[in-house]
């Protein structure tokens, strides 16, 4: 029995697919080897048995039905197909692609709006901080001129500890 490689060569020889050099080698083996001849004979006979298979023909009006289907599709350009489109073809636009494109645009717009809103809120919060600080420190701001005359807090402490301005402890002078 021939090996797989030999069988491959035999079949390619029968199909006329071998280059000349390989074909000559096969022909020599056919002359020299009865087993190879038997293999070829069996393969040829069984291959020819496929001719017994029934020949199918298109039903009457198939061509016309096909042309009608085309005309129908042309009048309704976005007719949906049930079969997966072949990768060999370059696809024409259809409804699903428009829907996807518009869906992407809507999502992008909503995303932009979200970002814009978040940015505005963030910016608003940032700008409100100084106002809050001003409100908290308003009592200081009201007396800022006086505090500036005083200078620093250490000086105030020193004055307070000196007792110079402590009127409660002093006895009234007659």
């Amino acid at each position, binding site marked *: 029995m021939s090996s*797989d490689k030999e069988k491959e060569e035999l079949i390619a020889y029968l199909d006329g697919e071998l280059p000349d050099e390989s074909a000559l080698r096969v022909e020599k083996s056919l002359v020299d080897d009865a087993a190879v001849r038997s293999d070829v004979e069996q393969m040829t006979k069984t291959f020819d048995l496929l001719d017994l298979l*029934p020949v199918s*023909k298109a039903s009457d009006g*198939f061509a016309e039905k096909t042309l009608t289907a085309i005309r129908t599709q042309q009048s309704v350009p976005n007719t949906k197909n049930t079969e*997966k489109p*072949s990768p060999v*073809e370059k696809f024409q636009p259809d409804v699903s692609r428009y829907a996807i494109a518009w869906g992407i645009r809507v999502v992008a717009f909503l995303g932009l709006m979200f970002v814009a809103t978040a940015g505005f809120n963030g910016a608003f919060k940032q700008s409100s901080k100084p106002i809050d600080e001003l409100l908290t420190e308003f009592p200081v701001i009201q007396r800022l001129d006086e505090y500036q005359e005083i200078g620093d807090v250490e000086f105030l402490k020193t004055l307070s500890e000196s007792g110079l301005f402590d009127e409660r402890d002093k006895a009234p002078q007659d």
Partner: protein
Amino acid sequence: MSSATHQIDQIAWLRDPDVQRMLRVRDDDEAAFGELVEAYQNRLIGIFTHVLHDSSAAEDLAQEAFLRVYRARHRYQPTAKFATWLFRIANNLATNRLRSLSRRKEVSMKGSDSGQQSLPNPAQLAAEKSALMPTRQLDNQEMREVVRQSLDTLNDRQRIALLLNKFEHMSYADIAASMDLSVQAVKSLLTRARENLRLQLEPYLTGSPERGSN
């Protein structure tokens, strides 16, 4: 592929009368499209019928193949023989259909890696008709059924490659282009397909071992 080789191939393809028809279809010549349908309808339906075992489904798929050709007409570029392109579309449709049928388990596809299954015992088949009837005298209808069943023992790719090889007389290169395979892969597929076919049908050629001499 060198540019000169590519140009030579392009010229060869342009000589294909069906490529010329398709170029007219590209220019919205409906009559040319009708000619292509007439030329290929039986061939397509024949392949699909052998693959699907359903003539109605075969016609549906053939029509779908033609519709795809027509829809792609404005983008058509003659880079191969028209038949190669058409049967590539057909192969994709058949493969998709077989896959969905297999998932729905409407058709039992039991292809193994070798794509081989066993057929009824030929001796038993002959004995059912008559103990004295030689296997080789099975009538054409019976042999046709035996051949059909043996074809079904092949897996999908083996079967399609074999049908294109046998009934479309396609070269290995054209089968490779139609099935999106390498030429070597096609060689291997066809070798396994024909070897499996031989193993299944050989007993019907040589006769039952129990058959007595005439």
